[in-house]
């Protein structure tokens, strides 16, 4: 035994062992299924901090022949003080026989020194067939904790409390599918109570996980801020000949604009989910509503409709030559301001009518028309996007990795998320304005991200009562806490 805490999650098949491991390890790659025997081999889930293992969870197969195992153990018993030795002997003598593969697999980590996390389903009745399992675990002499994982709606907690209390030091209720981060942390702390030397390590693990959670939230806020900036600045454009009718083009342009915004939002969703280690979420949500009443801007592009050669031929060459000398002296000042190599906005000399003024009446209009969709000027738009992102983040942040349901980003977020105070809304509005003016201003994006992170943090701290009442759900309270 290395001295690092190790916890073996054991129990009857199909009682949510893998779900608990998935939730505690934040790993949605864990295979969870209704069939018994989904887990066939023990699998380690180490918590690593810069590569150094702090503790590890081990998901194990369920007991299949507990009575036979216990029968064998009793036949070979040599006194209570040598029971663990007998269990070790059992594993050694059956490891390669294929007779008790699941029991050997689940007992091995315990014999390596793992603490026992015994999982039962609190929504089904207690039965005497569990007793041989619990007795075997008692024979190992390892510190143990029972987790009642209520998979279904029925409530049999009282009978489980009575039974488990006789076998385990600590009994806790932990719903693997609905447990929020705070509850996961509380459970980890409880693990630390199983053995004195583990307490410090688990306390350190909790601190690091909490810091990591804050960091993840901050990164999520940055992702949302970047997306908002990108969406506020986004536009699509199309060049048309001077006499072309833009009416037919507008629908296609609008569609392109909308799908671009949608794609940006989806990308943000994906990134936030990845930050929270959710890689397999199936989402359902309503499409991004509204964009803008004055979605389209139509501008006349002036000399820019002409080719560069034409511009030069038009006499610009003389001016440029004169300017070259001046500019060489000026120092390239404006020169490379954004487009020395032709990648500036409008640097190809063809677009961005906005920068060249308007109107065909100045006698220079010659090129054609430029129709653009966006950027949206609707003042409500960034708030809509932000609120959708906020709701999505809230759902993702509290979703456990055992949850297999579709993530429904719909409904009224106001039912669960309190509205922002007026002062905060006003601040956001000002930041959105600044972003509209300068979408690439990273300082503004950073400021927005900080604001968003603060909102996300408050959402994370929302009381369960509000959330559960909105979701029509209630997690049962802990039923016993013996010796911890």
């Amino acid at each position, binding site marked *: 035994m290395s001295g690092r805490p190790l916890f073996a999650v054991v129990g009857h098949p199909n009682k949510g062992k893998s779900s608990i491991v998935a939730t505690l390890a934040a790993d949605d*790659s864990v295979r969870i299924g209704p069939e018994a*025997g989904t887990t*066939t081999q023990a699998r380690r889930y180490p918590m690593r901090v810069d590569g150094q293992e702090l503790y590890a969870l081990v998901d194990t197969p369920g007991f299949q022949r507990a009575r036979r195992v216990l029968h064998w153990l009793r036949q070979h018993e040599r006194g209570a003080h040598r029971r663990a030795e007998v269990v070790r002997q059992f594993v050694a003598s059956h490891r390669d026989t294929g007779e008790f593969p699941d029991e050997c697999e689940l007992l091995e980590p315990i014999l390596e020194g793992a603490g026992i996390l015994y999982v039962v389903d609190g929504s089904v009745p207690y039965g005497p067939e569990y007793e041989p399992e619990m007795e075997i675990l008692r024979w190992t002499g390892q510190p143990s904790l029972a987790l009642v994982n209520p998979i279904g709606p029925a409530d049999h907690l009282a009978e489980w409390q009575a039974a488990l209390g006789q076998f385990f030091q600590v009994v806790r209720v932990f719903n693997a599918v609905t447990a929020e981060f705070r509850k996961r942390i509380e459970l980890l702390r409880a693990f630390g109570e199983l053995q004195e030397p583990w307490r410090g390590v688990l306390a350190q693990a909790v601190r690091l996980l909490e810091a990591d959670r804050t960091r993840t939230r901050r990164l999520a806020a940055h992702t949302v801020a970047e997306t908002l900036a990108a969406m506020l600045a986004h536009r699509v454009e199309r060049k048309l000949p001077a006499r072309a009718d833009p009416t037919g083009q507008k629908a296609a342009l609008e569609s392109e604009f909308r799908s671009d915004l949608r794609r940006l939002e989806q990308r943000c969703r994906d990134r936030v989910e990845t930050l929270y280690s959710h890689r397999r979420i199936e989402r359902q949500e309503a499409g991004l509503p509204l964009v803008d009443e004055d979605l389209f801007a139509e501008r006349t592009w002036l000399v820019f409709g002409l080719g560069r050669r034409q511009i030069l031929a038009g006499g610009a060459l003389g001016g440029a030559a004169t300017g070259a000398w*001046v500019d060489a002296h*000026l*120092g390239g*000042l404006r020169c490379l*301001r954004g*487009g020395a*190599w032709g990648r500036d906005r409008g640097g190809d000399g063809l677009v961005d009518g906005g920068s060249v003024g308007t109107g065909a009446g100045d006698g220079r209009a010659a090129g054609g028309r430029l129709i653009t969709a966006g950027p949206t000027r609707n003042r409500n738009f960034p708030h809509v996007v932000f609120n959708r992102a906020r709701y999505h983040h809230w759902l993702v942040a509290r979703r456990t990795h055992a949850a297999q349901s579709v993530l429904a980003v719909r409904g009224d977020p106001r039912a669960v998320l309190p509205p922002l105070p007026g002062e905060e809304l006003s601040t956001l509005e000002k930041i959105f304005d600044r972003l509209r003016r300068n979408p690439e201003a990273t300082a503004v994006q950073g400021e927005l991200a900080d604001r968003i992170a603060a909102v996300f943090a408050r959402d994370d701290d929302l009381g369960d009562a509000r959330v559960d009442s909105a979701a029509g759900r209630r997690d049962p309270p802990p039923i016993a806490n013996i010796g911890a």
Partner: protein
Amino acid sequence: MGVSAAYRLLVAALMGVGLVVGWSVAAVVFRYDGSRPVNVVEVLAVFVVAQLALLMLLGIVLAPARWLRLLPGALTVQEALAWLSPGQTLRLLQRRLPPGVRELVTRTGRPLGSSLPGLGKVRKWAGTFAAQGFAVAFNLGALAGCLYLVTFSDLAFAWSTTLEPSIERVHRWTGWAAAPWGWWLPEAVPSPELIRETLFYRREAAPLAIPAGRWGGWWPFLVACMITYGTLPRVVLLAVAGWRLRVAMRRALLEAPGVALVLDRLENVWVATQATGPEAEPGRVREAGSGDKRKDAHAAPRRLTLVNWGGLVLEEARVSAQIAADWRCEVLGMEAAGGSASLEADAAVVTALARTPEDSGVALLVKGWEPPLLELLDFLRDLRRAGGNRRILMVVPLGLEQAGGRDWQPLPAAGLERWQRRLRSLGDPGLVVRSWPEKPETLAVSGGAA
């Protein structure tokens, strides 16, 4: 060649060109062949007034838009200057370069053309720095040319302009110009006498009109002007541009996509809790045929022994009577196995069941909400071995009981099918999964011949 090296080369080249151009311009402006003196006004126009004008334009270009809004027309000037920029000129020139050179320039410049946030300022200050390098070199070249001609030739300076300002006014102007050094370098401040005596008109025989002692009287003033209004501002600007370029580079790096993540990674420990390897494939249940679900694959035996498996809480008599009625059979009795019973007790039940008539069946009432364990499968195997191949074995998974175990729910179809799939692994054609109560539907465990 890297961008950095290319840029340094460009700056060095610009400075080399600046030196040559500065020297050449000085050679032209200070040209004196004895026929006409060097016109001080021309020297000041080229090396002071033009430089100050360019500095003013530079200020306009560099100034933030919000400042320029306070100065009418300044924004327009700024926009106009953008179209005279070397950036634009470079692109025009680039298209006329030989293909190989153009490719090199394009490749070298590509990183600068990137749309990464923050690179705009890098480009701006990189350009400014390069141009100021040129300008400093230009001024140094001009100064060197001037000092060379002053030292190694005899120059005659005078001044002439069609504007014909009064001597007093010119003296006042030169006094202002010489203010920065006049208090400690009085010989570099033109005196009224010098101004008066060196005024010449081209129509007159100028060289003869200027006293010989005054020929070189202007050069200290001119050199001081070139240093103060030409070279020093450019040196300061060069230093500022270099500083701003470094700042912009640092910021651009910090603002580059992904850098936040890298910095975040550097500042924080990396916490991972996930599994380090893939999960083992689940155990496969042996499929024994394709007939997954067949109603009434087996007729219910006329006599039946019930087994309470796993300690179901039920009223024996009531359940037996109800099953007998539902299935129209005779229930011979009910045994208990599994659960908390010992293995010896299980063995005794198997023995007892084996003694019942072979045409009677055995129905195991099991907890449908629990998964079928190998322990149950072992029991069924033992039962088959002891009871013979002709005996019908039925597994009856019950749904969760209500009202204290007096009423039973039929197991939902999905649960029933899970039991069927699991028991199929035994490959026992005489084994069936049967629903009870309410849904007298029999599911054949095996697809094989019954």
